[in-house]
């Protein structure tokens, strides 16, 4: 299972990449693997104001649907429209297939997230 150093990880299996005031969010390799072939992705609207824990979309395979929650509060500034036509990109490269970009409103929320080592341990414990 692939992990990338320097990203933040959530218990709901999302990864977060922080660049200045902005965060890019996607689902982890572990998440795409347990879902299987992704067939559909539902995205939020740009400018949606979100609180941490809000639903930002759905990733679906043939036999399962998984809600995606934002681990951070903030305003949606971009969504990855390409996933609508090529949902399989999430299986191929989950860390390149970002879902949304957020303008972070509460930077301290990052402290609740895990490092890649912590996340690796978390998965071991879960599985």
């Amino acid at each position, binding site marked *: 299972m692939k992990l990338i150093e320097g990203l933040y990880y959530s218990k709901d299996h999302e990864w977060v990449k922080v660049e200045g005031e902005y965060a890019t969010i996607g689902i982890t390799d572990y998440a795409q693997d347990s879902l299987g*072939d992704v*067939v*559909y992705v539902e995205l939020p609207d740009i400018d949606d104001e979100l609180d941490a824990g809000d639903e930002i979309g759905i990733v*679906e*395979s*043939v036999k399962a649907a998984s809600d995606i929650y934002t681990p951070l509060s903030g305003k949606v500034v971009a969504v990855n429209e390409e996933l609508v036509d090529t*949902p*399989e990109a999430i299986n191929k490269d989950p860390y390149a297939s970002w879902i949304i970009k957020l303008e972070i409103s509460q930077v301290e929320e990052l402290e609740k997230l895990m490092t890649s080592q912590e996340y690796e341990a978390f998965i071991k414990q879960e599985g």
Partner: protein
Amino acid sequence: MTYSRLIFEVSKEGRVGYSLPALDVPIEDIPTSIKRSKDAELPQVSEVDLIRHYTNLSQKNYAVDLGIYPLGSCTMKYNPKINEDMASLAGFAHIHPLQPEETVQGAMELLYKMERLLCEITGMSAYTLQPAAGAQGEAVGLMIIKAYHDSKKDFKRNRIIVPDTAHGTNPATASMVGYKVTEVKSDKEGNVDLEALSQALADDVAALMLTNPSTLGLFESNIKEIADMVHKAGALLYYDGANANAILGITRPGDMGFDVMHLNLHKTFSTPHGGGGPGSGPVGVVKELEDFLPKPVIKKEGDSYSFDYNRPKSIGKVKSFYGNFAVIVKAYSYILTMGAQGLRRVSEIAVLNANYMMKSLLDHYELPYDRTCMHEFVLSKLKDNPNNINTKQIAKRLLDFRLHPPTTYFPLIVSEAMMIEPTETESLESLNTYIDALIRIAKEAIQAPELIKEAPHTTSVKLLDEVKAARKPIVKWTK
């Protein structure tokens, strides 16, 4: 070559498959402003083409009339033919639901009598036959529960409890009716965990929805305690009748303490599933809840029957008219045929058949809850599984033996679940055929795993690409 054409591909300009009498009235102009701009491109086929097309299609289906169909919780029993004949009598098939009541007294009498029969069989006080299926029955049941709490000005009850073994419909219905759902876990015996239940019960709980026997095929032996706990908390107890085939003439939901319930006539009472419908999901209630039943209600005075629409506390209506009448006729004929003794026999043999199959498979498959089962049982993975054969592969391999697989991957709390419900209409020989196939597959899993992984081999199409179907849905024919 297997038949593979679509009806649109059979079509040829200029062919017709129907005939109507010549128009015997003057022609009345149809204004262009209201007309459709182009004709609907429906097929053009002769009657011969049509019959061959659909007969060919029918031969690509597996069906109860071809062999055992042991889908757990679906009760795929044999569908008696006399019932079909009765439902298609002209006096039933060709009556309009809004005809004057004096012209449909026979139909109304049948509905009335059916309600009384179901009351006796389940220990409820009154029934509505309106719901078109189990899921709609559940919705009616929960609407009644909501109306009951509202009538007591008890507006804070916004939660429904379901066990983790519940059918997916239970939570889906609860949320459709506006409730939040709380799941309680099962204990290691497969019963509802009483501790967890007691923690979940509070003054915001409207009802507990329970299937008994549960989807593990096990009878909830603490049912009386559960009923007491639920009632003490001011909530009601809902019976999901999906598994009623285990208890006919043996025990009754009404006696167990349930307040509202639905039955599936297409499971327990032998009406055919039709490839996914129509069904019928009557709802029974205790005396206290009668006023909330959907309208109309049938009344009997002397020898005459009437519809009563004046029901101020009724939840309203969920289905046009009086339910799936033709389905009800079939179930009515079935109950007459079986009688009290026959219905009890149904459950006895359904339970015996299930236990026989369960014990016969123990050497080869894991049984996560090792108890005497009721009408169905749930197996988990293969005991000896060096090649990691999963349940889906076993299911597909069964197709090669011209057998229908069990319900798979349900209930969710059992990994690799296979839920098997043979029903009472399967003979010992038929059960043995199925057992032999499952044992043979267990052996193949060790000796010839590729045979299983590549299955099915003998069906009209091989493993279908569901991912492709979902990514770029093609849901209609285009030229």
